[in-house]
Each structure stands twice: as structure tokens, then as C-alpha cells.
């Protein structure tokens, strides 16, 4: 089955992973800007990173027929540094015209501090000023509920934000309802230990339906699985769901959300090498 992984940090994956994803049916993916595992020292490093995301990665993906898109920002884990945030936000506009840029992301909160929230609001203002879509990271583990609530409340109180153009990602059982009820799109992240298993993701689909819900691997430099979406497809089949419903989640929904971005083009569908 053709699918789109709406969250994959391919800079930290090998070219072999692109090949395996293509074999499994991946036709497009989106790569939000994220934390490198260490705090970067200057905006120049971010300029190099954004250059990588808008030049090298799309070429690497194209070798395997995968359309590569990206979101740009300073990641929430670095949002505490307000001076660095101001410097990085100042250089982002020069990259927004690149053909694979979808918008601003993954912005958000990490430990939910005042500075992180200020940096989050600055990113939202940047997105609005440039008519960009927004991709939001919600915090990990015990911080998820608080961080999601703070951001949802912040955006809901801002009359300028169209929730239909915002993805509030990494939803779990205790946050998905508040995200959907406020009109946002959401993503369920198939990531071992710290996020959601395929089984729990299927549970959420059964309980909340398919409207404005996507799934993604969020594969990165941690223990993670670039084939997590095909594993979700297998779990949906094991749980008795039909192909049309599965396709809605893994292909039609990402296309519907991402098509609101100026640079997104519906990927060419192709025969899958490996049946999933």
C-alpha cells in the first residue's frame, strides 16, 4: 500500500532506510526540523541544517522515488535560549521559498517553560506573517498533557490561527480529544517506549475515527523504526479493518492536510515492491 510518513528525521537515517521505505510503499515524507542531540551554538549552524533539509535530503529521497518535504524552525529543546531563537527565526524566511518547504515546524514545548512558550509564540507569529502552515511537537511523557493543553489553549485564544492548517503531533490517549475538539489535525506517533505502539494507534483510530488523524514513524537517531507506518498497516489488517479505511489514514489524510501547503504536490502512486 502506498503511504506518506508525515514525520521522519531522515538526516539521522541511512540511505538504506530510504530504500526500505520505498520498497514498503512510502511515496512521500515530511521532515520537521529537530534537535540534533546537542544544543547548537549559532544561527550559522541552523543555516547549514536548513540548507541540508532543502537540498541534500530531497535529492537523496528522490533516488528511491520518495518526495521529500520539510518544515523549518528552532526545535523546542533549544527554545529556552531566547537570543538564539531570535537569530534563527531571522534566517528562516530566506528558506521558505525552497520547493520542498511546507511551513514552520516542529515547533512546540519541551519542559513547558516560560521561555519555551515565548519562542513557540514567536514561531507562530512568523508562520502567520508568511502565511505558512504549522507543525507542532507536543512534549514527551509526563509533560505531554500540560504542554499540549498550554499550546492548544494559546492557539485557540489567538483568533488569527486557522486550526485546519495546524498539525498538533504526537497525540496520545489523554491529549487526542482536546486536539481534535479544537479543530486541529493530529498525528499519532509510532515510536517505541516513549510514544505509541501500533496497537494503541489502532485503538485511537477505532475510538476517534479517521477525520484529521495521521500516523507517522518520527524515526530519528534514537531507537525508532522507519518502517513503523507499514507495521501500523499490518496491525490495522490484523484487527480486521478494510483497505479503504487504512488508506484513508496513511495516504488520503496526509494528502488532504499537506495539500494546503503551497509547495506540496500529490505524489505519483506506484506499485509496491513488497506487499504490506
Amino acid at each position: 500500500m502506498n503511504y506518506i510518513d508525515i514525520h521522519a528525521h531522515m538526516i539521522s537515517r541511512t540511505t538504506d532506510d530510504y530504500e526500505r521505505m520505498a520498497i514498503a510503499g512510502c511515496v512521500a515524507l515530511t521532515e520537521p526540523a529537530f534537535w540534533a542531540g546537542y544544543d547548537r551554538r549559532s544561527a550559522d549552524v541552523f543555516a547549514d541544517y536548513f540548507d541540508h533539509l532543502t537540498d541534500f535530503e530531497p535529492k537523496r529521497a528522490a533516488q528511491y522515488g520518495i518526495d521529500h518535504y520539510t518544515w523549518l524552525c528552532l526545535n523546542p529543546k533549544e527554545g529556552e535560549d531566547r537570543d538564539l531563537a531570535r537569530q534563527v527565526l531571522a534566517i528562516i524566511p530566506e528558506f521558505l521559498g525552497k520547493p520542498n518547504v511546507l511551513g514552520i515546524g516542529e515547533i512546540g514545548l519541551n519542559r513547558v517553560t516560560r521561555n519555551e512558550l515565548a519562542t513557540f509564540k514567536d514561531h507562530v507569529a512568523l508562520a502567520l506573517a508568511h502565511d505558512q502552515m504549522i507543525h507542532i511537537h507536543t512534549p514527551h511523557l509526563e509533560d505531554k498533557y500540560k504542554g499540549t493543553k498550554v499550546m492548544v489553549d494559546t492557539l485557540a485564544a489567538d483568533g488569527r490561527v486557522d486550526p485546519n492548517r495546524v498539525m498538533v503531533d504526537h497525540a496520545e490517549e489523554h491529549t487526542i480529544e482536546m486536539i481534535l475538539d479544537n479543530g486541529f489535525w493530529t498525528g499519532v506517533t509510532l515510536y517505541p517506549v516513549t510514544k505509541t505502539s501500533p496497537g494503541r494507534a489502532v485503538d485511537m483510530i477505532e475510538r476517534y475515527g479517521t477525520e484529521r488523524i495521521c500516523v507517522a514513524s518520527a524515526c530519528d537517531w534514537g531507537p525508532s523504526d522507519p518502517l513503523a507506518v507499514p507495521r501500523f498497516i499490518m496491525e490495522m489488517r490484523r484487527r480486521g479493518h478494510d483497505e479503504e479505511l487504512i488508506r484513508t489514514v496513511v495516504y488520503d489524510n496526509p494528502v488532504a492536510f499537506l495539500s494546503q501547503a503551497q509547495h506540496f504536490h500529490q505524489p505519483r502512486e506506484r506499485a509496491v515492491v513488497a506487499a504490506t
Partner: protein
Amino acid sequence: MVTNVIGCPLTQRQLIDELFMEHRTKVLDIAAFLDRLDRAAAQDAEDDFRLVAFRETLRELTSAAPGRVERAQMILSDRTIEPLAELDRKAAYGASIRTADGNGAGGAA
């Protein structure tokens, strides 16, 4: 407000036939973890906020009411709403060191 429920196509019997074995092993892993804590070289963390939340979560699993996973998630969550004045650490613990009234919970991490 949930308006788009799909539901589970499988019967209880089908779910048990398909999923029992993999959940059986998860339960045994938890039982073994609790036994391991009892056998630990020192009994020095019974008030650790993570273990306290873990035990409370286990009690929730025996509830007869649906919604166990949401309630378990909330037991393991920071239920305060006010942003922190400054960054305390980069990574999350997995359970909240703060109680709902904003005070720190017991134990060390």
C-alpha cells in the same frame, strides 16, 4: 466530542485469540520488575515518585470502567498548568515530579 467512532471489528474471542500471548508476556515482565525491586540490594526508593505513580497506575488497570489508558496516562502526567519559570532539565522522567498543586513529589531522580 467524539462523533466518528469506527469501533473494533473483532469479537472479544477473536481479540484474545490474536493478542493474548503478547499481552501475557507484558504482564509477566511487570510482575518480574516488581519482584526485582523487592530483591534489590537496598530498599531505598519506595517513595520515588516514579514508583509511586507506577503502583498507582497498576491499581488503575484493575478498574472495571473503560478509559483505563487515559487515567493511567494522567496518573503519569504533570497535571499542573503554569509554565516553569526556568528550564530544570532537558529530558522527561516518565512520571511527574510535581503534584497537581505544583509542589514537588517525594523521592529522588
